[in-house]
């Protein structure tokens, strides 16, 4: 490789190369560690002080944000003091090291650790043993947890529900997003329409759950219904229901939860579609019209093919999103009434049942599900060739 030969020429010796390498690693590790330790000390101090809450909050914010900034400055200053070849080699790692170290600690390495934990029983790998002893211990169950994951009734229910979430959630988000984008483009109140449809994006899942719980609010027959849906249903002569808890129609009661995510995500889809639609050259549409195509033919024949790329990326984003859905289900039903999904099962197994082996296996299944998207992203990145 070219950089290696150049590096060797600059260094003139292997020893220098190794030292520079060690220096880089040390720096990448040291910045986060020291910042971490300083922040940690500050927090012990803050936790033990009985200053008013407002003061603690303010000090914490300044301490955290200022601390991180200061550390970059200090390390840069230290490295700039070094002699020249060292300086040039180490500076990039002052910049990129902390980001990579944190990504490694919080995402990359946990993938391996979670996989390792998933091979053990509920307490995970026993402490105090070395790697080989752990594998030989009774706690090691191999792929036993995965077998459970794919056979347990509650898990199968969760997979079924998640498939419903993915199919209905993504399809309706995309359809409504596209419909609204097309309509808004031709309407006389585009801006305000888009703002209002987009607004739920700013609302938390917990907030959205409360909002929709209020729509679904159930009172026994004969009482005044204060929930909008039951009020309409009884007004039309129907029977009131506690919609998401309506077990008789399971699994279709999941749709009452999926509606919430469509409500939240359609705005996201709309914004992206709207931008893509505006990118269609007007001549193309005019040409279609002159050829006598009606609006539907223009939509399916010109617009849809033109925004295909956006369609795919919006669709994958919503699919990943619904795959990981947790808050809505957890707050609305807690997974009861046949509404468990993979992420609620993960939470229940890992933190309620404290079965970390089983929970980790579920997390790995989630990871496997997104791997095709990951490969697609990497392929796209390679094709862009922007990175030389």
């Amino acid at each position, binding site marked *: 490789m070219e*950089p290696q030969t150049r*590096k060797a020429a600059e260094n003139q010796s292997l020893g220098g190369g190794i030292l520079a390498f060690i220096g880089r690693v040390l720096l990448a590790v040291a910045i986060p560690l020291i910042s971490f330790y300083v*922040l*940690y000390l500050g*927090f012990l101090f803050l936790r033990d002080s009985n200053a008013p809450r*407002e003061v603690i*909050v303010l000090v914490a*914010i300044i301490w*955290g*944000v200022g601390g991180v*900034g200061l550390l*970059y400055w200090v390390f840069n200053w230290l490295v*700039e003091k070094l002699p020249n070849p060292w300086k040039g*080699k180490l*500076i*990039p790692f*002052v*910049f*990129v090291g902390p*980001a990579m170290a*944190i990504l490694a*600690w*919080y*995402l*990359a390495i946990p993938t391996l650790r979670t996989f390792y*934990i998933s091979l053990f029983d509920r307490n*995970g790998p026993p402490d105090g043993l070395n790697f080989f002893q752990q594998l030989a211990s009774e706690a090691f169950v191999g792929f036993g947890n995965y077998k459970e994951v794919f056979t347990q009734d509650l898990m199968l229910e969760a997979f079924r529900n998640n498939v419903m979430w993915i199919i209905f959630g993504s399809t309706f988000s995309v359809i409504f997003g596209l*419909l*609204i984008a097309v*309509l*808004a483009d031709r*309407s*006389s*109140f585009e801006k305000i329409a888009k703002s209002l449809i987009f*607004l*739920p994006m*700013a*609302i*938390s*899942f*917990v907030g959205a759950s409360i*909002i929709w*719980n*209020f729509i679904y609010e159930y009172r026994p027959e004969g009482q005044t219904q*204060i*929930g909008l849906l039951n009020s309409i249903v009884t007004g039309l002569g129907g029977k009131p229901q506690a919609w998401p808890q309506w077990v008789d129609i399971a699994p279709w009661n999941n749709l009452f939860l999926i509606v919430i995510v469509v*409500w939240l995500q359609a705005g996201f889809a709309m914004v*992206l579609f709207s931008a893509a639609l505006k990118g269609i050259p007007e001549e193309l549409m005019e040409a279609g019209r002159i050829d006598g195509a009606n*609006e539907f033919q223009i939509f399916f024949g010109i617009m849809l093919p033109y925004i295909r790329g*956006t369609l795919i990326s919006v669709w994958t*984003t919503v699919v990943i999103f619904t795959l990981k859905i947790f808050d809505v289900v*957890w707050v609305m039903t807690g997974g009861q009434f046949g509404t468990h999904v993979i992420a609620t099962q993960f939470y229940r197994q*890992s933190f309620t049942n404290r079965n970390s082996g089983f929970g980790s296996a579920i*997390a790995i299944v*989630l*990871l496997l599900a*997104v791997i095709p998207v*990951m490969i697609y*992203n*990497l392929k796209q990145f390679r094709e862009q060739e922007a990175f030389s």
Partner: protein
Amino acid sequence: MSGQKRQKRVGKLLVDLTLLLLIVIWTVPTLGIFISSFRNRDKIDTSGWWNVFPHREWQPVSELDPKALGLNPDGVMDIEGVSGTFEEFRAGVESPDGKRITWVGNKRIGKIEIQEQVWMVDWDFSLDNYRQVLGGQEFEFKRPDGSVEVVPGDNMVNAFLNSLAVAIPSTVIPILIAAFGAYAFAWMKFPGRRAMFIVVVALLVVPLQIALVPILRDYKTLNLNGTYLAIWLAHTGFGLALATYLLYNYISGLPRDILESAFIDGASHFTVFTTLVLPLSVPALASFAIFQFLWVWNDYLVALIFLGGNPEFELVTQRMAAIVGSRGQDWHLLTAGAFVSMVLPLIVFFSLQRFFVRGLLAGSVKG
């Protein structure tokens, strides 16, 4: 020609009406919560929030004493020109002139009400719900009959401050770290650069669930659970891949000659970064900041796991979920609380919508 014009106008009207319908459907859920949060606790419990809009309701206009009329409730009765049994009058019988005659009470000591439909608006708004949900002290609730009930407040102010203390650093720290990283990827040459960036791209879609169990173990070892630092770092870790990727896309597109002339003048990378790149990248920084802020403010799962044990550190989302769990029927608290939790995201959203949309476009169309 005029036929075509008319067809166009009808088409436009159809578009506007369909869109209007969709807007109404999308807005009504939030509107219901918003209106209810200002309504009296008893009113929320006994009537739908849509009663604040003008509607027709039966109201008593006069009363009759059944004994004075000499009516026998056990048989068929004639009142005001309509006849019916006791059960029928209990439910209300409508007379041909648009009145309704209703027997109120039981057979022995009841009365007869003559009711008419009148236009009503149910406007009895107050800030009591907000006072109760925000305050930490006891709150006196006056019932319509004059009795007073003392209920504890929900101390949302405290949760609000906690959420701020979590959300602001959890937004700024990852942006700072990601901006340094993105700058290095864009403008520095170093071994492993391409490999590291591939790692960043690969980590974009990794679900954070994968990290929760191992990180919780680390936090236990480090005695970090339940501190601000724990959750800041967690949000930093989970947001960093996207932040680095988005900021790289922006920073690598900055004009080369501006940066190069600074280097020729002898500026160091650090100086160029802080005085040139950061100010030039404000649009990208802002759009990611909005994302991360909304995501952290609205997050429930990460807070539940890393702050779960300590009620003093409870965030707004946790507070709300706790009220849903324990007092899911207390709609006066839930509606007001939900709005308190939404105020800040909505302000951020409406004031910075432009940046938000730009961020969405940069992130998802490319990704």
